[in-house]
């Protein structure tokens, strides 16, 4: 093979890449112009074919798939909603022991941590503990509401800082968008791979698990409608207790914790559902 011809082809390709026209590129190698011209014409077409932009949706879908695979491979559960209650209580107990041993500095340092940061699991465990130790039901609901707001604020901050992190939060479906929903002010994208539980409709309370995206949205891996207990928070706690069969106290807690979470006004501490099942790593 003629090495000069081969080298001339590369020269011309580089010239075209730099913005030269076909004629300008060939002018540098007049001796090979006739041989190179058809090859360069094909090269130009092939480069145009290859330069087509990557569809944004394709990249987004692939990103979720890869991040989910990474999470799976690390042995993480995608959703902390399935985490065993006993394990979480054990973590809380460990935190209690730690605090008693003088971990207040760490406590204050973790207060402003965000998902994905080193101290964040500690922060969530402290929250767990706080809820477990709160006996008064009204106070417990108040704390839960504060924590729901905090999860939203954390997610907002992550989106503002363009971080890519797994998050989970509870919120209200406010408005449907072209790509998903706005959940308590957070744009949530739902795609074909999103696991949807329940019927999504405005006003529904949902639990969202997903990954923050640099575009200011959360790409949902899972979104679940929380079914409110019909006898729930609007009812009279005393009536509630009276109406509850004693046998219920021996029932295992609801694995999802959702209904009992909102309606458990019986005051029976031994049977309290895990109030923070939406915890994160």
């Amino acid at each position, binding site marked *: 093979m003629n090495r000069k*011809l081969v080298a001339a082809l*590369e020269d011309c390709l580089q010239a075209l890449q730099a913005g030269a026209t076909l004629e300008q590129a060939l002018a540098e190698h007049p001796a090979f112009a006739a041989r190179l011209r058809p090859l360069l014409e094909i090269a130009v*077409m092939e480069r145009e074919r*290859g*330069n*087509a932009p990557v569809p944004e949706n394709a990249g987004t879908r692939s*990103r979720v798939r*890869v991040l989910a*695979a*990474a999470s799976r491979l690390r042995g993480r559960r995608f959703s902390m909603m399935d985490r065993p209650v006993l394990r979480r209580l054990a973590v809380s107990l460990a935190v209690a022991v730690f605090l008693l041993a003088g971990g207040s500095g760490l406590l204050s340092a973790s207060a402003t941590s965000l998902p994905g940061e080193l101290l964040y699991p500690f922060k969530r465990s402290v929250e767990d503990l706080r809820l477990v130790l709160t006996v008064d039901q009204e106070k417990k609901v108040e704390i839960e509401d504060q924590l729901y707001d905090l999860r939203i604020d954390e997610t907002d901050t992550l989106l503002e800082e363009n971080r890519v992190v797994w998050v989970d939060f509870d919120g209200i479906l406010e408005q449907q968008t072209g790509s998903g929903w706005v959940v308590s002010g957070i744009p949530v994208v739902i795609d074909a791979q999103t696991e949807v539980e329940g019927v999504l409709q405005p006003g529904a309370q949902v639990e969202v698990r997903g990954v923050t995206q640099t575009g200011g949205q959360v790409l949902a891996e899972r979104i679940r409608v929380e079914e409110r207990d019909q006898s729930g928070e609007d009812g009279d706690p005393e009536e509630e207790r009276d109406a509850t069969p004693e046998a219920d106290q021996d029932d295992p807690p609801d694995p999802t914790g959702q209904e009992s979470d909102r309606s458990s006004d019986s005051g029976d501490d031994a049977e309290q559902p895990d109030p923070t099942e939406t915890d994160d790593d």
Partner: protein
Amino acid sequence: MIAQSILKPIFLGVMDKSALMNRLDPQAVAGIFDRYYPQVFRFVRYRLADEYQAEDIASEVFVRLLEAIQAQRGPERNLRAWLFSTASHLVNDQMRSRYRRQGEQLRDSHPADDPHLDEHVQSRQERRALAAGLRKLTGEQQNVLALRFGAGFSLEETSAIMKKNVNSVKQLQFRALAALQRTLGVER
């Protein structure tokens, strides 16, 4: 930023697999994905001329990377070369499965379904001819064109990924274009 300092050696194409294993947090994986996915996607799309299959295969390349690292058999030195080698294998598998499907028409017409490609190629007939012509080349010839014109790599980058010297890549791309010219019947 810590993440940047962690990912810097990966971006350079040199990495320590045990270190990367420790970095399989979402931020690190997203960094690798964002850095390489567009090129991998373009490489695969160029070879298959099918955006849907390109999406599947390109994401599969990254899933295979994570699985390989977890199994302690990930790339030792050159992450980029590993990614494109894996992509090439997956494309070849896909092509073989296409041919096995008896009676099924090859999807040469798929580029016509892609609005982005429509903007860049002059005519549907040309696209079909180019995509069909590309399949008649050898695997290496397809790869060199896909790396140069699909993924947009320089001669030197292509050389590193294909693990060939620069002169060999020059000759290979010359042969590839000449072969494509012959298959298109436009030899002058």
